[in-house]
């Protein structure tokens, strides 16, 4: 819990600052409008699923750079097959869930059996999946047009609460994913194995943990969640361009995980922290669009600076704690 206090405070500050800047001076509920809060929650849900996935891999001391391209592969592939090629939707959906599992299994096997570095394996994945997607679609946008309204409810639907505000359905999906992963990580022996092997793979192996199997599981879950997010993204936006759909999403996901307390050295990380990290990035983007639209082209710079500030503050806080402990 202690690990996520910093990020939670930062999130709260940015959230309140955005609220004040956007609403107080305009005298209207802009940021705090039901419409905007719903948009915000939906974006957090979509990006959060990616963040949770990659955090599992980061906990093992690995990395997954292929997320964005898996988002692209599934996000473009589903409408392309269902609308463009006329495949039945259940078959397409099954494929959309199974293919990422296979991709994750491939990554895991290459990392554990061939001892390839995760960075390289998933970097190649990044290139391959996007290239393949651009190839089979001939770079054409794929979309649902007016169809599949019921299915699209999964991404753009809501459970109405009160006038003008409802819980976006993807948030419920995120809730289920987050709960399952949190239970897996903290309440099952396998989650403990995962954290242990992230801390020291050798020690974990010597204490009898089947480390390879656990690493593979992490990659499989990660790719699966990327595929799920890709599906939800395209259901939300209704179209996907092979060339830029999901571009850079792996970095947003990794940034959210690191902000949320995952160490790239492995061994630490919490689901709540990752969610807070994701929320921070999305609130920042929302703030720039609502309050400083004229500086929208500096969005990446702002996000970069805030992430850097968060990580630096975290590091300084850790050192202060260590000094205190040493002193006492």
């Amino acid at each position, binding site marked *: 819990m202690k690990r996520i206090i910093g990020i939670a405070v930062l999130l709260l500050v940015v959230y309140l600052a955005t609220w004040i*800047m*956007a609403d*107080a*001076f*305009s*005298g*209207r509920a*802009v*940021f705090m*409008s039901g*419409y*905007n809060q719903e*948009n915000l929650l939906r*974006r957090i849900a979509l990006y959060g699923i990616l963040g949770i996935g990659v955090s599992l891999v980061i906990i093992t001391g690995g990395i997954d750079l292929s997320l964005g391209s898996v988002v692209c592969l599934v996000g473009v592939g589903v409408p392309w097959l269902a609308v463009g090629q006329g495949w039945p939707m259940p078959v397409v959906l099954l494929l959309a869930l199974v293919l990422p599992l296979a991709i994750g299994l491939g990554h895991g096997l290459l990392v554990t059996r061939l001892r390839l570095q995760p960075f390289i394996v998933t970097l190649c994945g990044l290139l391959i999946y996007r290239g393949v997607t651009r190839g089979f679609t*001939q*770079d*054409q*946008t794929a*979309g*649902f*047009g*007016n169809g599949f309204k019921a299915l699209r409810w999964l991404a753009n639907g809501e459970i109405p609460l009160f006038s003008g505000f409802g819980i976006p359905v993807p948030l419920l999906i995120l809730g289920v994913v987050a709960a399952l992963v949190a239970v897996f990580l903290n309440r099952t022996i396998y989650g403990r194995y995962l954290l242990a092997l992230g801390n020291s793979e050798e020690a974990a192996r010597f204490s009898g943990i089947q480390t390879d199997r656990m690493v593979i599981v992490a990659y499989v879950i990660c790719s699966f969640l990327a595929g799920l997010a890709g599906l939800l*993204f395209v259901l*939300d*936006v*209704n*179209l*996907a*361009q092979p*060339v*830029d*759909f999901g*571009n*850079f999403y792996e970095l947003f996901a990794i940034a959210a995980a690191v902000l949320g307390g995952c160490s790239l050295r492995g061994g630490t990380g919490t689901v709540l922290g990752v969610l807070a990290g994701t929320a921070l990035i999305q609130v920042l*983007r*929302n703030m720039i*669009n*609502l*309050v*400083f*639209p*004229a500086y*929208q*082209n500096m969005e990446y710079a702002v996000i970069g600076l805030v992430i850097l500030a968060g990580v630096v503050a975290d590091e300084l806080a850790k050192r202060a704690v260590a000094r205190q402990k040493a002193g006492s």
Partner: protein
Amino acid sequence: MTSPRFLAVAARFLVPVCLAFLSACQKSGGGAQQFAFVTNGVDPFWTLAEQGAKAAAAREGMDVKVLMPAGGAVEQKSMLEDLLTRGTAGIAVSPIDAANQVGLLNEVAERAILITHDSDAPASNRQVFIGVNNYDAGRMCGQLVKEALPQGGAVMIFIGRLEQDNSRLRRQGVIDELLDRSHDPSRFDPPGGEIKGDRYTILGTLTDNFDRALAKANVEDTLSRFPDVGCLVGLFAYNPPAILEALEQAGKIGKVKVAAFDEAERTLQGIRDGQVQGTVVQNPYMYGFRSVEVLKALAAGDRSVIPADKFINVPARQIRKDTVDEFWKDLKSKLGK
């Protein structure tokens, strides 16, 4: 600890920044109606449109934000949502993919005045489209190719992407003109294969998705694969400069003909130097200017600005060596250079 000094330094930086933030907030929070002009990407072409939009906004005393999504359709969507959140009264947008954005555009149209510019979304509830007839403009570019290669020859087409209505029509116009086909904007030759006509062969269409480095690489690869290509056609603003760059490095400048679209400086210089046959220019400045004017009229309840066919044509023009200087001078004055 150095914290007091650190705090002093931090305060010196933070206070003015905060004050600037606050004053920015107060300004934007004024009672005046807000309008927005949203592009489909980031490009000097859109800088011209921005100038037009701002000039009109200044003249009409309007608050107009110009937004350029760098992250494709996902970012354009969240940008439009956030504009609605801010209570923007009217939005002019160039949709990235009209067919699949109908739902989003209709959502915008429900809560604000919506018009399209540059690329249309005829199936949506947009009130009017301001732009060029891209098919006709493409045919004008085809005429430039014919002038450059009167005996016929092999032609390669370079373009940013083909998903957009405007780029598809523009490319089709070039092809139909070169093949002397009838006027039919609904025709579509899939990219990839070679298209052979009586005098002209279209070798293919290469896309680069706004990646300038890739745009140049596409030209280089074409030069290696088709050494006897006769004319290179660049259909997005940055394509002709990429073509000229690659030709220069290959020592083929002036030998391979170039037909251009839009008004990048390098393109205009190329026309002046005789390296480019000519260019077809849209009028992005007027896209911005007219969009803002029309938004203002619609916000005031004046619907007389909407023609019966819901299309405000900002016609394209051909610029050749004899007209390039005059055009360029006018362009510079619009950009305040």
